[in-house]
């Protein structure tokens, strides 16, 4: 009995002591952050579907570090840094989340599943009603994506790393995951974790940005429509999905898995009369199951050892810059439309062009309804929102095709 070491018996505490004060502090901070994410997710300040599993994953991975048979520190969840196939096969039999990570996360499949689910939520009729205005707003809302690229490069990141972190400005998780996978695989884990963490913050942070940049008088604008909105037939929407998928895949084969995933979702939605079970599966179990697993994996990837990259602080700063600038760009686009339409346009719609579907559209409607209960902007906001997904996909294609050539 005398030989039993307390730290060997309770290895979570033992590794905390053995890892040194700095790593131990980071682990404690991440555990506290996990608690905070769960609390904010539960309260509805952040997206609960991602934040609750992510927060719990963060807590579990940082508490559950143990001494591995080789003597080093590790865990029984997953090891994202393995590249050797033989070793990977061994780890897959031990770490319970390794198969999910290797077979769905690290190849972007989970991003494609989420995109299919998002596709089933999109009513492209809003985009068909006013394509130029929606796309214009979405292009303005990509300001952060473009400006962060030179900023990141001036901070010492390579062009590939800069482009990967700049994609956070597009506010589209699957796009960030995909771009960093193609351009900067070594930073794939921290960039994706930071991106999803911040994307959750858009729900809580953007309302303050809008209130800061748009005065109350303009937030309360009630738009009057000259023509009654058209309702497009599902055949037209299906044709839209097919033509646009073909066109974008033709232009950017690099991002074709994402285009395909998005438009197959739209196609299934528009054929739901004949594909009801498939529609129910993609819009329900596939979307929510993938989102849950994504949250879980993101949490488990928040291992202190893994995130202690010298570049992590830069990534944290650059990601928030990208998202802020994109929000500002969207609002500038909203103001431009306000002046073009001679005051008959609510500039708040611009924030919905930051493509975090459908969060930013909901945020825009919530802000406007607070100021003027009669003002209904959700259809315009959703049009801009959907365009945001398309422009993010275009930029992902542009970056992955052009950046390696520079």
């Amino acid at each position, binding site marked *: 009995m005398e030989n039993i070491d307390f730290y060997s018996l309770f290895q979570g505490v033992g590794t905390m002591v053995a890892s040194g004060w700095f790593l131990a502090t980071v682990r404690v901070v991440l555990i506290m952050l996990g608690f905070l994410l769960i609390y904010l997710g539960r309260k509805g300040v952040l997206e609960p579907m991602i934040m609750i599993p992510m927060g719990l994953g963060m807590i579990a991975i940082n508490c559950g570090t143990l001494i591995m048979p080789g003597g080093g520190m590790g865990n029984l969840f997953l090891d994202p840094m393995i590249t050797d196939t033989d070793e990977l096969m061994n780890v897959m039999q031990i770490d319970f989340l390794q198969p999910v990570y290797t077979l769905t996360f690290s190849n972007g499949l989970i991003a494609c599943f989420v995109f299919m689910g998002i596709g089933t939520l999109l009513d492209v009729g809003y985009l068909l009603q006013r394509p130029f205005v929606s796309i214009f707003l979405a292009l303005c809302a990509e300001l952060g994506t473009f400006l962060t690229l030179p900023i990141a490069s001036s901070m010492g990141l390579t062009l590939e790393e800069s482009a990967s972190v700049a994609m956070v400005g597009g506010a589209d998780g699957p796009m960030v995951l995909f771009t960093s996978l193609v351009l900067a695989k070594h930073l794939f884990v921290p960039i994706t974790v930071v991106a999803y963490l911040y994307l959750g913050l858009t729900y809580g942070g953007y309302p303050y940005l809008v209130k800061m940049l748009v005065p109350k008088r303009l937030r309360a604008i009630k738009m009057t429509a000259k023509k009654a909105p058209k309702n497009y037939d599902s055949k037209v929407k299906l044709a839209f999905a097919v*033509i646009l998928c073909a066109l974008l895949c033709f232009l950017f084969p690099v991002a074709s898995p994402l285009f395909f995933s998005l438009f197959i979702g739209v196609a299934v939605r528009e054929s739901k009369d004949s594909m009801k079970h498939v529609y129910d599966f993609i819009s329900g179990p596939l979307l929510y199951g993938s989102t849950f697993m994504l949250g879980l994996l993101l949490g488990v990837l928040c291992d202190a050892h893994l995130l202690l990259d010298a570049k992590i602080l830069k990534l944290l700063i650059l990601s928030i810059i990208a998202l802020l600038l994109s929000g500002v760009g969207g609002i500038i686009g909203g103001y431009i439309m306000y002046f073009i339409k001679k005051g008959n346009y609510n500039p708040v719609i611009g924030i919905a062009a930051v493509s975090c579907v459908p969060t930013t559209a909901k945020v825009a409607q919530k802000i406007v309804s607070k100021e003027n209960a009669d003002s209904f902007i959700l259809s315009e906001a959703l049009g801009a929102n959907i365009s945001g997904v398309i*422009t993010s996909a275009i930029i992902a294609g542009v970056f992955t095709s052009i950046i390696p050539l520079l």
Partner: protein
Amino acid sequence: MLNLLLSTLGMMGLTFAIGFFVAGIIKAIANWADLFAFYKLHQLEILSLKKTSRPLEKTVPGFVAMPKNDIYKEKHRKVSHFLNETFHSLKPRRRITA
């Protein structure tokens, strides 16, 4: 750095160009849908006009069917006559009410 700024501007321009091209295609799809809906709406009228011209061929002895172009001219003439009639009948009434 200047090179990077120029490349970024170039990529931005390319994205805007592709974005507006995509918007143009979406607009074309929407216009095509409107046109199709318009045609479908008026298809019934065209069919009914065709039906009204058919009995003439059967009942009137020695009736010679007009070539297709003439049928359309005739339809056009009928529609314009109807419109003129309506317009002229409305005009005085408007004046009276004014």
